[in-house]
């Protein structure tokens, strides 16, 4: 049997015998709700323990930010570094989302626990790991 033929046959066989599982295999956990400690996208893919581990590793990598207040201040800072008024939950989510997109655009990313994430997401994880 040829390589591709085999893959297709194996797939078809598996299709025939396997039973339907949960939708979105791989996503079995619910995100927490505080935007400052919940990287929205990443928390769909990682359980809280992994997020905390990412946070611990960020704090080791950036010891200057190994502190709740510093992390909170940096997270609340606007995309251009300006201080913002503490927004409501929806506003905060919007602010963080905007920052995260901007960081991916400007390549302000970091690799932690193999994940390529924005620095804001790393800080959210770091804050989570301190709570």
């Amino acid at each position, binding site marked *: 049997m040829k390589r591709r033929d085999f893959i297709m046959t194996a797939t078809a066989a*598996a299709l025939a015998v396997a039973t339907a599982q949960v939708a979105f295999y*791989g996503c079995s956990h619910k995100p927490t709700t505080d935007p400052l400690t919940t990287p929205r*996208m990443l928390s769909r893919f990682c359980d809280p323990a992994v997020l905390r581990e990412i946070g611990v590793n960020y704090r080791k990598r950036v010891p200057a930010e190994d502190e709740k207040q510093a992390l909170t201040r940096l997270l609340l800072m606007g995309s251009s570094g300006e201080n913002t008024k503490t927004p409501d939950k929806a506003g905060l989510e919007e602010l963080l989302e905007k920052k995260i997109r901007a960081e991916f655009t400007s390549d302000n990313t970091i690799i932690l626990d193999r994940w390529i994430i924005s620095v804001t997401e790393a800080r959210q994880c770091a804050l989570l790991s301190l709570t």
Partner: protein
Amino acid sequence: MHIDARLLDDRSVIEGDICIIGTGAAGLSMALEWVDTPYKVILLEGGGFEYDEKVQELYNGKILGHPYYPMKSSRLHYFGGSTGHWGGMCSTMDEIDFVKRDWVENSGWPIRLEDIAACYPRAHKNLDLGPYEYDVKYWQKQEQSFVPMPLEDEILWTKMWQLSPPTRFGTKYKDAVVNAKNIHLYTYANVVDIQATENISAIKEVTVKNHAGKQHTVRARYFVMACCSIQNARLLLASNKQAPAGLGNGNDLVGRYFMEHIEIGTGELWVNKPESLVLYRRTVHKQQAELAISRQKQEELKLLNATVAFVPLDIAKVMEPSVKTWSEDDPRKALDKWSKYYQNAYKKGAFRHVSLPFQKYQAFGLYTRSEQAPNPDSRVTLSKEIDALGVPRADLTWQMTPIDKKTLRAITQLLGQQVGKAGIGRVKMADFLLDEKDETVPPEASGGWHHIGTTRMSDTPKTGVVDKNCKVHGIENLFIAGSACFPTSGAINPTLTLVALTLRLSDHLKEQIKANHQA
């Protein structure tokens, strides 16, 4: 017509206008172009119409460099050649693949994409591919669910592929060749030596042998070598009675610059809307897409060309590197072992989630395929060991360079940035990519069974073995067909391009033979 060379009287002399050595995708594509022409074509195949262990054994050799598939099982030695086990994935090369890139040493073809573009649609027919369309917009019109990922084309663009059935040339084209009056197919006719004229400016004849102990001589006006990159180089190097370094090897280039596509899992893609990836699904449609590094990013970051495909993660996690699962010398056993490996994985529950529609997967393995930079130390050499017909075996040293690793890392990182910017997912990088200072490619990096280079094309004999028309520099009637002529590999599987290049060579030869005839 077909003649079994084992049944001829010993030391027969065979004469024709053109002698084509090899009946794989290149050799048969060339031969088919000459059916019903006024020219007598001698088509030489070392094996028969079926697998023959003794003949296959002639391909045995040692792997000396980066781990690679056994020499004996990575190519098939019978009528139809390696189209007997190829996978069928086809796409076109990109413009940048042909140009000289300052950051890629020894890059640059003496021809451009437009020089072979007219031959691509013809090659499509040989390979039973669909319409000659590689623009994703065309395929979107055919299938509404084919939606490209919302990424920036100037960073990562959606490159289309088409899948051949895959066409087994030995089966499909046997009758056309055997029934052609002017095509004289000789099976069990292994070329073991090439003899040139006294001043080595032309080829006079080749010697063929078989396990029946017969030896024959083939004379022709033109010779076309189409035995694949490794065997072409082996034969040129071994034909060293007149030129001690081998024919066409005055500048020590024959056998060098062996290239493969570096294929390896480079991480994971996690997405929030998996349905957006249907276009990139493998094996279901006759078309599929991958993401490729844009020309701009290749130039800006000084990268090679590369593409990345997506495999549902639970399947990707149990996929062993091909170089580990395809480890048998015997190509039939290699395939069996490969199949058993997946059967065992299935028994262990590896495919338990395969019942889910592709759209329901949230995580995918990144299957990256990268161009390999031309490297003179990645090469085919002659062994001291001799095969059953008296020819030194070929040994292979597959060797990579730092830019190969850099490219694997970069495409993964670019994907991470792009899906992050688009807000559609996140990328998790493979362990072997984490250390930026580590320039080595890990041993599990496999090839795509794509043998490229070894008689590279160049305007001058100082930098290449063949000229822009695939003629060996300095030898007026010796040509090479196939991916052996590629100076660089591009990121895509070579079959479509090697067939197109062969058709271009055929056109050139027709013009030349006509011109000489008129003169």
